């Protein structure tokens, strides 16, 4: 219909193509009808241009008054806010084009991402760690044996402790080199005691305090550069025959 009117207004009858004549045929089959239509449409256009009507000012005043009465409360404080809301959240636009939602999405992304950069790696507390509970399946036979050996060993230990004489500590003059129980250098002391035990088959531990109490009480000195000689002159010059225990020790050692 719109096309038909456009053709009639814009073209003359003799300019029409076959298709156009066919299209407008129902409304204007002949040239005379075509001209009638053309005249009518052109006159109506002129009338529309001439007739620019405006309602009276009183009508608008009356409506303004009515509007203010109806929206009195909103009109007092809401106009500015309404403008902001319309600007930020225009309902006619799709959701992703609404500024308020865009800003909210940006803030959400920032809130989610920024803490990741500021996060410190803290040692995890025991409560946060996974617990690995390994259940040992108990073997009854092994358990019984263990119990037996543990009771036996504890009894033996008690007996040994009761049998062993109490170790007395003799005061040693302080010279910057403190030893509780010293008769010879530490390494030698241990070595000698182990060897002597093995050789003699003794169960008790060897102590230089028992063997040579004078030696133990003396201050340790060594003026010799290689440190072979230990103790003072009196002790080193003592005959081995006078000290049979020491002779046995030396024999077993070397």
């Amino acid at each position, binding site marked *: *219909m719109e096309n038909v009117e456009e053709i009639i207004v814009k073209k003359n009858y003799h300019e029409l193509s076959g298709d156009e004549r066919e299209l407008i045929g129902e409304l204007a089959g002949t040239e005379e009808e075509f001209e009638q239509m053309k*005249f009518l449409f052109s006159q109506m256009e002129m009338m529309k241009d001439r007739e620019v009507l405006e*309602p009276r000012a009183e009508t608008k005043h009356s409506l303004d008054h009515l509007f203010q009465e109806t929206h009195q409360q909103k009109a007092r404080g809401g106009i500015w806010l309404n403008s902001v809301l319309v600007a930020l959240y225009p309902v006619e636009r799709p959701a992703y084009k609404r500024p308020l939602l865009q800003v909210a999405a940006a803030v959400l992304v920032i809130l989610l991402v920024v803490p990741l950069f500021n996060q410190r790696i803290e040692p995890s507390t025991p409560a946060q760690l996974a617990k690995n509970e390994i259940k040992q399946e108990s073997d009854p036979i092994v358990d019984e044996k263990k119990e037996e050996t543990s009771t036996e060993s504890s009894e033996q230990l008690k007996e040994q402790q009761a049998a062993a004489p109490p170790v007395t500590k003799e005061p040693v003059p302080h010279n910057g080199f403190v030893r509780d129980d010293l008769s010879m250098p530490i390494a030698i002391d241990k070595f000698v005691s182990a060897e002597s035990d093995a050789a003699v088959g003794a169960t008790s531990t060897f102590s230089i305090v028992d063997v040579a109490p004078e030696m133990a009480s003396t201050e340790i000195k060594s003026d010799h550069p290689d440190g072979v000689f230990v103790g003072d002159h009196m002790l080193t010059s003592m005959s081995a025959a006078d000290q049979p225990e020491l002779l046995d020790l030396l024999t077993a050692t070397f």
Partner: protein
Amino acid sequence: MRLIKPSYAEMSDEALMRSMRNGDQRAFDEIYKRYSGPLLGYFMRMLWRDREKAEDFVHDLFAKIIRKPDYFDMERSFKTWIYSVANNMCKNEYKKQEVRKGMSNGLDNHFSLSDTNVNVMGEVQDSFFREAFERGMQSLDEKHKEAFALRHMEGLSIKEISEILDINEGTVKSRIFYATKYLAEELKVFNPVINR
């Protein structure tokens, strides 16, 4: 991203209605500016060129919009909605006049009123064509007149008219076709080309 609100002149009718519903008077002013003139013309054509009546109808229509803005469905086109309201108001007026006519002495009050209306005649005094056209329009029955007026006076599309009148597009075309043929025939005496 557009944070600054567009000017009211750039806003769509529907957006203006939303603002107006929230109490924005400037939105109402813009709607009034856009539609008051065309609606006044429409009412004048549909109501026997009675300007007083047309003014009253314009006032009543906008008063309805102010009081009950929720009547407008935001999903619809405002233009088609407001013309459908205007059209319904005219139909109600026709019914009212039919009742009055039955009670009157048989004289057609409308033609007598509009024809003797000095203002209307003042507007069309330089055009016999216009007078004849108006007579032709008034002699059309309502359904043809409203379809023709909406199409050729208000410039609405066939689709919009079908929505306003709540009829299918084929019927709209048929009514416009009939009214056009009728008026062209009535007014051919004014055509200088044919009468040459």
